[in-house]
């Protein structure tokens, strides 16, 4: 990359270096007889891949080049794991502090890996897996919460019933004692 914010006329297009490097590496590896034809096939293949997975090596390269100035570009890919839990209704979020912390931890770990994992794609199973995991945790938390509520209700009911029963017993006792007194 040339100096940012300069008005130099000749700039290398964003992410071009990444494409050039990839192409050269593949040519050296495969040693094709007809280099232009091989290169054409190589880029066609990359284009196809981009249509399928939406991963553009040039765009990626531009981000890597620009990383020093704009580290936030890498966070754009992150939210596919992070947005979903945030969309959950707020009343559900309060009791599941533990799980949300875990999610944050996972994101941190993932974030620390992403800049090195050049092959990581936004739709890769890795991210989906983590997202799925986060959802599972959330589900578990919901179940726990329901169980707790049920247990609490049972407790309250039990206490109330016990209280009622004791009251009845007292009344019975009082009645019994009066009867005894009358007998005497």
């Amino acid at each position: 990359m040339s100096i940012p914010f300069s008005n130099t006329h000749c700039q290398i297009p964003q992410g071009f270096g990444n494409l050039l490097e990839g192409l050269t590496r593949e040519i050296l590896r495969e040693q094709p007889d007809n280099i232009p034809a091989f290169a054409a096939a190589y880029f066609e293949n990359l284009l196809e891949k981009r249509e399928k997975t939406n991963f553009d090596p040039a765009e990626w390269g531009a981000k890597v080049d620009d990383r020093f100035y704009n580290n936030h570009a890498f966070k754009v890919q992150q939210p596919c794991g992070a947005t979903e839990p945030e969309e959950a209704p707020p009343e559900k979020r309060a009791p599941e502090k533990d799980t949300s912390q875990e999610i944050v931890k996972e994101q941190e770990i993932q974030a620390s890996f992403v800049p090195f994992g050049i092959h990581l794609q936004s739709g890769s199973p890795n991210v989906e897996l983590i997202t799925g995991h986060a959802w599972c945790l959330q589900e578990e938390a919901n179940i726990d919460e329901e169980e707790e509520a049920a247990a609490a209700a049972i407790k309250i009911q039990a206490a109330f019933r016990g209280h009622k029963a004791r009251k009845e017993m007292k009344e019975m006792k009082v009645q019994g004692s009066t009867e005894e007194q009358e007998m005497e």
Partner: protein
Amino acid sequence: MPLPDTMFCAQQIHIPPELPDILKQFTKAAIRTQPTDVLQWSAGYFSALSRGDPLPVKERVELPVATQKTDTGLTRGLLKVLHKQLAHKGTVDLKELQDKWKTLCLPVETLKFILKMDPVEDAVEWMKFFSLGCSALGGTLQSAMKHGCEILTEDPEGGPARIPFETFSYIFSYLSSLDQDRTESDTNLFLNHLEETVVARKNGMIGVSDFFIEDKKKFHPV
């Protein structure tokens, strides 16, 4: 001694002798053309190179170039590239035109918009499409003709931008015929007038300054 299969050092990598030059030309082309979508353009570049077609490369950097992804309009340099690639065919397949169009990272909507001005089936006469492209570059007929001259001319950049009068009159009458406001007799009168006054003394070539002045005299009499 045969080379071992395992790689021990960088010297073992065989570099094809033509590779450095290919990469260098490729890089120079990318810097000159400044494509908005590098991947798409690279694919087009190498497919043209492998077939021996003219390359999708601008002759020089075009300054007010659209570098942002949002701004992807047709520019004079891009139309010139298309002209270089397709002009020798005479009649161009729409599919091929679309391919070349995409290689230059131009939006398909613009192509459709241009083709809508004079709908064709599946092949378009290149000079007609070129004329339409010129009119898309400049709003009025005069500025369209100016763009056309500056693309087609063999004069150096900044020169008088002269083109053969035949080409000029072809583009001019084609574009005028699409414009309902201009009658055929008007067009012919204008062209004849130009031919008499300009062409006779300039070797059959007409430049931008010639028709601009003539046009003003003709249509806006003071």
